């Protein structure tokens, strides 16, 4: 298979995405909107451009002939607040303590760039029950989970000789994922894990990672958007130039959503000399959780709002 997978409805959203960019250009008149990997700096427009670049870019290869994605990477075109974006009139932008910032959605499909929640789930995500009643599990030093880990701090991709595994190490609370590339069957659904069990394969020059067996104990973003333990997350990583990866993640969860949906961003190589992942021992100096619980009454999150469904 040589075609890079496309996301349905991408073309519909391009006009809207470019309109967002025009607004950004007008607002920041000192210089033109920046590009990432030679593509526009907005998730939907970036991804559409990246698909075109991927058609003609021939990536470096491992000794076994697989695309070589190794190195240190950072996300770009991302914000951690809400995958549905932060509009310019969002009141939290003016919060004096921890202001949000206006930003386009990372959701690129469906065309309205909102998570296609089932009605019960829409009341829990999207700054609903989760955001108002529960402490973000990442705040408690739990893993940011999949794919949020690839959005937070720097990460490192390793492809050990033999191409039987891809290792993806994350600075954020020092997590790692081992992606089996040998076609082994998935384990049964009774096994639940924090970072999921990943099975990878190559589709042309794209690394496709299917992750299942997630326990649903994580949020997708600060806004409390979530999935249940029934989710399958499919990530696609494609080099579009030596230092830029087109990244997408598609969520399928028949318990929470009415249809699959997809986010996109870029991973850009960290090239500072001597760059390495640093230990991020979140727990060592954590001293706020007791007070947060006492003063706000917020609970710890273990998928509690949806587990009864």
């Amino acid at each position, binding site marked *: 298979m040589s075609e890079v997978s496309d996301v349905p409805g991408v073309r519909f959203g391009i006009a809207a995405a470019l309109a967002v960019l025009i607004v950004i250009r007008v607002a920041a008149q000192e210089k033109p909107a920046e590009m990432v990997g030679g593509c526009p700096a907005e998730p939907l427009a970036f991804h559409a451009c990246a698909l075109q670049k991927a058609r003609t870019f021939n990536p470096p290869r491992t000794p076994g002939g697989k695309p070589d994605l190794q190195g240190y990477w950072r*996300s*770009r075109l991302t914000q951690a*607040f809400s995958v549905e974006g932060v509009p310019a009139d969002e009141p939290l932008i003016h919060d004096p303590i921890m202001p949000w910032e206006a930003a386009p959605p990372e959701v690129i499909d469906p065309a309205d760039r909102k998570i296609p929640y089932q009605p019960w789930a829409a009341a829990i995500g999207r700054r609903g029950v989760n955001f108002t009643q529960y402490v973000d599990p990442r705040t408690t*030093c739990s893993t940011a989970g999949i794919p949020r880990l690839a959005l937070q701090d*720097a990460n490192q991709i390793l492809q050990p000789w033999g191409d039987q595994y891809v290792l993806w190490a994350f600075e954020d609370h020092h997590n790692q994922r081992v992606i089996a590339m040998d076609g082994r069957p998935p384990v049964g659904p009774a096994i639940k894990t924090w970072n999921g069990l990943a099975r990878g394969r190559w589709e042309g020059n794209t690394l496709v990672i299917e992750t299942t067996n997630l326990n649903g104990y994580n949020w997708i973003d600060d806004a409390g958007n979530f999935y249940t333990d029934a989710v399958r997350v499919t990530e696609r990583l494609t080099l579009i130039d030596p230092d830029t990866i087109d990244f997408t993640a598609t969520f399928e969860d028949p318990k929470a959503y009415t249809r699959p949906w997809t986010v996109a961003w870029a991973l850009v190589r960290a090239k500072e000399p001597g760059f390495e992942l640093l230990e991020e021992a979140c727990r060592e*100096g954590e001293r706020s959780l007791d007070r*947060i619980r006492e003063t706000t009454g917020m609970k710890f999150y273990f998928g509690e709002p949806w587990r009864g469904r």
Partner: protein
Amino acid sequence: MLALAAAPASAHHAFAAEFDSTKPVKFEKAVVTRMEWVNPHVWIHIDVPQADGSVEKWAIEAGTPNVLFRRGFTKDALLPGTSIVVDGYRAKDGSRRANGRDLTLPDGRTLFLGSSGTGAPLERP
């Protein structure tokens, strides 16, 4: 301006709930006594001189040490005895802790201590 945010910083909604946006504080003549270089947040301990000659001890919460380190701001940057100007918001429980916003060093450079920021890392290749 030494900016702190690099990787997409989370708003850590729950952390924000610990502090009181109606209780801003600003210390013009604070003196650093100790810097705690820990995850997930660096703590800057200061002495705040009072009019009567006494000293109040405060703790200012800043961002993550790894981000500071990559910006060239190290453990030696705020040695005990350094005079700083710092502002922020006081903890809701009334203790002498604040969520730091801006810090000004003696040479006039400012450091943004807060945890907000969009996705684009400020370090470029």
